[in-house]
């Protein structure tokens, strides 16, 4: 093997190692888009984990309404990667009607899953409710209306959504692959350019 082949091999090994050596996982973001809301108190996402399979305690993630972007965003930390067993979405304890448009699951700057609100709050995606007077999705509208009462309104999300969220944490493989391909291409093109 000549010197150049060895150099290319070393670069290739380094770039492959960069791609496959695990880095920390990204956070996962559950983002709900709304078109109408009154409440400014926080929404709370309760979670249960493999170690502690009960909802409650300090296992919560708070999110405030962002009136500029019309979103409510829960940032689920990377420590919970593949560890969530149950999710419960708690609404502010007031009487109100909220119009949700859609829900997104995002990780590492990439949208992993998009739901219309009708699908996200569909009966098969809900394992239980409390203090929710109605969930309506009129046929002529994108929005799904959720009517809450002043008690302790919440929705327990389905196993399918929990699964999607658990799967969505990213290990940045594609990003690392793109950067590696770029660096490899620059090295190759530089070498070829110098020779010609």
């Amino acid at each position, binding site marked *: 093997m000549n010197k150049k082949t060895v150099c290319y091999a070393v670069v290739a090994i380094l770039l492959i190692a960069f791609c496959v050596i695990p880095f920390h996982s*990204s956070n996962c973001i559950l*983002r709900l888009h709304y078109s109408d809301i009154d409440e400014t108190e926080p929404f709370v996402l309760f979670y249960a984990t493999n170690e502690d399979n009960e909802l409650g305690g300090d296992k919560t993630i708070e999110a405030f309404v962002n009136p500029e*972007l019309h979103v409510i965003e829960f940032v689920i930390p990377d420590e919970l990667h593949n560890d969530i067993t149950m999710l419960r979405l708690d609404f502010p304890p007031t009487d109100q009607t909220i119009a949700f448009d859609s829900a997104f699951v*995002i990780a590492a*700057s990439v949208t992993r899953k998009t739901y219309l609100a009708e699908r996200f709050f569909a009966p098969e995606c809900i394992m239980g409710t409390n203090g929710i007077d109605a969930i309506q999705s009129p046929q002529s509208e994108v929005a799904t209306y959720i009517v809450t009462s002043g008690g302790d309104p919440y929705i327990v999300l389905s196993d399918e959504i929990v699964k999607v969220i658990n799967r969505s944490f990213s290990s940045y493989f594609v*990003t*690392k692959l793109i950067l590696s391909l770029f660096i490899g291409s*620059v090295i190759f*093109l530089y070498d070829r*350019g110098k020779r010609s």
Partner: protein
Amino acid sequence: MNVKKKDYAAAIIFGMITAYIAYAIDKAELSNIISDYTGHVYVYLPMLLKKETFFQGLGAAPYFLWHLLTIIGYKIFGIPLEYAAGYSNALFALFSYLTVYFFVSSLYKRAGKEARSSVIAIISFGMCILQPIAADWSNVWILSVAPITPNPVTNPTYMATRGFAVLAFCLVIDIWGRQENDDYKGIFFKVENGLKRYYIALSIILLLSVLAKPTFVEMFIPAVGIVMLARWIKRAAKKDGSAKKYFKILVTTFLSAVPAIVVVFAQFLMYFIFGGSYGEGGSVVITPFLQVWRMFTDNAGISIIRALLFVMFVMLIRTVPFIDSNAGRLALVCFVVSFLQGAFLGESTKLGHGDFMWPLMSAMFLLFLAALKALIMHDEKEDRPFAGALTVTAWTIFALHVACGVMLIVKELFVLV
């Protein structure tokens, strides 16, 4: 080329637009309670204006060129403080635009290409406002001034360093060219007549840059040093006697950076040791890898790609001219140095301010300048399939960055207010 002398109208108009945008952003940002402008105008400037709090103010903002210009407008010309701040901003933006115009027109001149001043003006204007490729439909692609941008237009002191940064970059490119080759003719300056005056000019420019904000030289001086040390080591390894001569050149170049280095250390003393940094016990700390980045982005890699898409594309289509040029090498080393600073350094009491991300933004801007140089001065080989198409694509990506800058400005001016 060349730029026709009677064809400067477009250059002047775009200069005025650049200045007005900077002025208007100042006004818009002042309506935002938590913004860099609010801090500088309503906290630091009042401190600097009172005898009792002057030194406290100087400790909190030991980089005072922007503040000084604002105070001159306020005290001498009687302009209200908010407006004086806007005019300072406009003047620094205009200065920055003119230096980029000088940079781009010098490239066309050196390449012997025809270029209307309107084209140069559009490119220069674009460079002053461009932003990472972004869209509002996803939170991560969101159109906002994040710390990972070549143009953090909402920070007055960073933007005040911009013109000095461009001039320092031009000076080092030409100084290096002349140091390497006695027959070298400068792209930007007449270095063929001797380097003495340009070392002095570099010294003054670096000093002014530090007085505007030290973050550019925090990255630039180490990067220049690293490249020159590498070249010296390479010569020493050859053992042909050239290393000794180059060492003298290295020392001379270093001496031109000494005033700036002294002032940076003085600023550090004021900021960290004498308590200028707000919050008790503030100091520089080494953080876990990318800890500060993660406060601003979910994916550092994608953020870099978004911010530098044009540069990356030019690196692929002009690989050899980019990497083999002094401009490309310097900008790349600047990027690596500043990336490491941003990845490992923070301020203990205010990590969330990302104050060690500023050098990275300067380095990104230098990468854009280096990419422009490679794109303008070197043509595609004509025998290449689709000759010209890659160049057009590169300019299209550049235009996309500029379009995102325009959208951000519209949002700043018409949504924020």
